[in-house]
């Protein structure tokens, strides 16, 4: 009998929550608030505290990938002047803008809302800033943000203080856009909610340390929605309390996400959005659970601090895996491999996302030597499926699982 996906019951609630958020942003009823675009690990708490509606275009990028619209849209951005070698979130999103289409239209909504201000943090990459600057030119609106250092070893006070100051410096131009005075108590409240969201999201991900796991990486890529776009709201907190309870019940009841779980995998790198279904099916049929990833943990910010919000945000958003040194990444993954009882690591080398492809500086070999856990590299991309071979990936994964089984 063919294996079946085990539906997480809370998901319906999440879809309702996300639907409400998108409807507010893009529905016919004006909210009366100004619209801020924010990078996915940008200063969302500050924007929420200042009364902005906050829209995250990377979420749209992922939707373009998952709906398989991206590959047809990327060439439009390429023809406009954006190279096929740069971030395919950027090129698919700009391609969608140029064509006037969006997966939101399938939900009865329009195209993404126009920004009154675009706010970035380059902790992920430079591409997010270039992406936002395109729209700033299109709409003649301000594009402001934070330039975080990259390849950070220790997140020391020099960095934290500099980023905190840079974040505070956003207040004045943001006040000019929204016409409201900044309120530190409101920021403390939002940061408090965001921190609680983080705590719960981390707890959700850590349920996968249980053998067998109640949750896979592929579930995580769906369930992370509120942690990305609704952190700092009560709705996200309520949702993750519900999800966590369901997963804890699965553990109590011995319910495995993958029936007959035989092997446990760490997924390193970006999801391949257009192939999530194929990949999750393949792993399920191989009775192999992808239990942990750096990617889903990218929205865990334990250093957020309502008592000292700017410093807490600066520290939290500089401690991201993606802007850290390889020494740090190695240490982080060693701990994850241990904690999640990992048998092997799959690295996704995403052609257009060098900053989140961590196989390129010999890290896999170093980790294999230290842990004895083998690895395989899948060549592909987050959104551009012209860069992905179904057959190569299928064989690589199948061969890797054979190896884990001792063949």
């Amino acid at each position, binding site marked *: 009998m063919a294996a079946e996906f085990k539906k997480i019951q809370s998901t319906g609630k999440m879809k309702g929550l996300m639907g409400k958020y998108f409807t507010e942003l893009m529905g016919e009823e004006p909210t009366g608030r100004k619209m801020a675009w924010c990078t996915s690990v940008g200063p969302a708490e500050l924007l929420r505290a200042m009364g902005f509606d906050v829209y995250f275009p990377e979420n749209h990028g992922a939707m373009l990938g998952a709906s398989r619209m991206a590959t047809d849209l990327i060439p439009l951005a390429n023809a406009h002047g954006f190279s096929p070698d740069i971030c395919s979130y950027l090129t698919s999103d700009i391609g969608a803008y140029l064509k006037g289409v969006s997966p939101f239209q399938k939900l009865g909504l329009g195209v993404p809302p126009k920004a009154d201000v675009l706010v970035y943090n380059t902790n992920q990459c430079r591409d997010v800033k270039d992406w936002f600057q395109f729209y700033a030119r299109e709409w003649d609106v301000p594009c402001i943000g934070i330039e975080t250092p990259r390849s950070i070893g220790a997140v020391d006070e020099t960095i934290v203080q500099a980023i905190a100051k840079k974040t505070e410096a956003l207040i004045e131009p943001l006040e000019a856009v929204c016409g409201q005075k900044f309120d530190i108590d409101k920021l403390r409240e939002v940061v408090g909610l965001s921190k609680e969201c983080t705590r719960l999201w981390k707890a959700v991900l850590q349920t996968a340390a249980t053998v067998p796991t109640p949750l896979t990486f592929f579930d995580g890529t769906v369930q992370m929605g509120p942690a990305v776009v609704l952190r700092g709201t009560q709705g996200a907190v309520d949702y993750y309390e519900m999800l966590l309870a369901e997963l804890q019940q699965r553990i109590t009841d011995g319910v495995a996400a993958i029936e007959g779980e035989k092997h446990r995998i760490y997924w390193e790198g970006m999801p391949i959005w257009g192939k999530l279904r194929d990949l999750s099916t393949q792993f399920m049929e191989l009775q192999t659970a992808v239990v942990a990833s750096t990617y889903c943990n990218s929205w865990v910010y334990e250093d957020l601090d309502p008592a000292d919000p700017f410093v807490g945000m600066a520290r939290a958003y500089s401690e991201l895996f993606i802007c850290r040194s390889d020494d740090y990444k190695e240490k982080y993954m060693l701990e994850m491999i241990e904690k999640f009882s990992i048998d092997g690591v799959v690295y996704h080398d995403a052609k257009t996302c060098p900053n989140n492809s961590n196989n390129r500086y010999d890290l896999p070999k170093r980790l294999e030597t230290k842990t004895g856990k083998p690895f395989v*590299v899948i060549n592909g991309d987050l959104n551009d499926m012209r860069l992905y*071979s179904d057959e190569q990936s299928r064989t690589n994964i199948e061969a890797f699982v054979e190896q884990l089984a001792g063949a």
Partner: protein
Amino acid sequence: MEYFCGIDIGASTAKLVIADEQGRIVGKAMQRSGVDYTQTAQTLLDQALGQAKIEQSQIAHTISTGYGRDNVPWADGKMTEIACHGRGAYFHFNQQITVIDIGAQDSKIIHLGDDGRRVGFKMNRKCAAGTGAFIEEIAHRLALDITELNALAEKSTKNEPLGSFCTVFAATEVLAKIRAGVDVADIVRGAFCSVVNRIVEMDRVEGLLVTTGGVVAHNPFLATLIGRAFGTEALMPPEPQYTGALGAALFATKQSQEGQ
């Protein structure tokens, strides 16, 4: 006596082996994979059964491998070509080996430990460089039959390097060399060296170096060049093009004995 069957339906060629319980090949067959893998598999089976003078009912277990591994309805199981090439090569050498398999559409480097267990592998990136498809393209550009290449490359004493990663751009470089009057043998050797370079940059070699697959079977000088590049002798099992099919037959034997 029971027999075991391995069938390797590759991107270009399908190979089938019937082996006895000791892994001795009693029947084998090969033909182009074509467009109907299921029919090709049946044709090969019939040929090999005739050669072995046995009935299909005497085959206790069959494993399919290769691109067409899902298209053999009478197979009892499937394994990847990575597993099968490793297993087939280890059968002949029985010690730590690195297998380099160059197929029509992909190249693989497979590491096996002293005990024959796979410890790692790499496939070429999503690109024809370093594969049989590259050599076919160059032969086409030079208006040569693919069977002529090995002797030409061996005759040449001068490598005319092709710099590009890209098969299409490399073919353009070939055109430029033709225009410049470069000796065809030297161009062929340059193409061989290009394949070698793509292999060398994929991975390291640990233990004995063993080369398998149709490309080295027809072009043994390419295996010699690979050995030189890695600073060691490139060994070849008997009938290297059948290595994957033999490995599949050996997995069939193992699975049958284990009652899978």
